[in-house]
């Protein structure tokens, strides 16, 4: 009886402990490539990144848009990140203030999510899609979906996908 208790307890605390280290130390490192376009008129794309569970409940990760235009004129085109607008952007709570920054040009862009941040630490376990959507003025739109199981715990965890037009390679690592 006593031994069973201690065995259970230690297993339980190991679980706790491993979760704790995972939550305290780790980050999801994302590298998102925006391809160079051979076009006469080029505008840096609007990009949104979010996590969506199997019930389509969304958790915002990042948004790159023209945030420094006069009179917030850049927000006028947020609806063109169409899937993101539907799942996240149009919500009255405007939950996308966190990792919001200006648009980025061609190249590989890194961003990191600390898993102990309030939003991600509380995310229920389950199957998710990490969704990356790009929408370019006078250009195309593309969504790349990367399926993953939350929480991501294994150190060797890595995800990769690539877009066909508006997005290049997308790599995600746990670090």
């Amino acid at each position: 009886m006593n031994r069973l208790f201690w065995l259970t307890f230690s297993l339980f605390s190991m679980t706790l402990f491993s979760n704790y280290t995972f939550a305290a130390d780790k980050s999801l490192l994302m590298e998102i490539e925006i391809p160079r376009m051979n076009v006469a008129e080029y505008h840096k794309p609007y990009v949104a990144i979010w996590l969506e569970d199997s019930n389509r409940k969304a958790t915002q990760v990042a948004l790159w848009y023209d945030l420094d235009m006069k009179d917030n004129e850049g927000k006028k085109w947020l609806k063109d990140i169409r899937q993101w607008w539907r799942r996240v952007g149009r919500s009255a709570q405007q939950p996308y203030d966190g990792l919001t920054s200006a648009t980025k040009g061609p190249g590989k862009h890194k961003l990191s999510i600390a898993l102990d941040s309030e939003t991600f630490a509380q995310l229920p376990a389950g199957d998710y899609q990490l969704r990356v959507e790009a929408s370019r003025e006078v250009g195309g739109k593309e969504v790349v979906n990367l399926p993953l199981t939350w929480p991501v715990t294994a150190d060797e965890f890595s995800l990769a996908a690539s877009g066909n037009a508006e997005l290049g390679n997308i790599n995600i690592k746990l670090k």
Partner: protein
Amino acid sequence: MNLSQPFKKILTVGVMMSLAFSVNAHRAWILPSSTSLSGEAPWVTFDAAVSNSLFVFEHVPLRMNGLVAQDPSGKLIDVVNAHTGKYRSTFDLNLVNPGTYRISTASGGLRAVWRDENGKRKMWPARGKTAVASEFSTAVPKNAKELRVSESYRRIETFVTSGEPTKKVFEPTNSGLELVPVTHPNDLFVGEEAKFQFLFQGQPAVGVKLAIVKGDTRYRNDQNQIDVVTDAKGYATITWPEAGMYLIEAEYEDDKAKAPATSRKGSYGATFAVLPL
């Protein structure tokens, strides 16, 4: 919309008769420049016309009298820059508050058609005139040939949303044929199923015939019309085959009219955008 019921009736009857009787066999529509908008107080511009091809300005404009816009709280608001040209009316709407707006024109009342002693078709109220129910007995000859008296209702509308879609403007007026969304009309996507309920005079309308046609008909040979009939509770479901702007037209008729009418008719038309995934 806080008008008393009788006054509202007179108003809508007056407003719409010219429209109701000039657009037979054509399609009437209100086409928004965008249906789902972001940013602060965005603007939408609209074209309103009656035509054969969708959405082409080729026949007559949809007249602006009787056209109303409601904000997300249901309050009537003004459209601006209204202009009626040869083939279309245009106007702008500023979406000051977030939510779903309704832009519509609705009318209805008694209508009579018959043939006079020379076999010529007559109608009451005359084209462009208002039906005043108290004038029915003097204006319509009771023993005329082929006399048909109906209660006819017509509604043409569209919806646009700034930010998150809302539902207040879907509250039915219980007059004529109306669509009550289950699926929000500003949240339609290709390959997904949409469900709407139809009401006639506030009651579920069974057997309403829907004709759904995507725009750009002038660039194809086939209309590719989707035909749907409402079920026993007035519901219709549609799975959108392609992204695009659609005209949803619906017709209802029964014989439950009050004398002197012998039939009740309702027609409905709405312009809905279906977005790509």
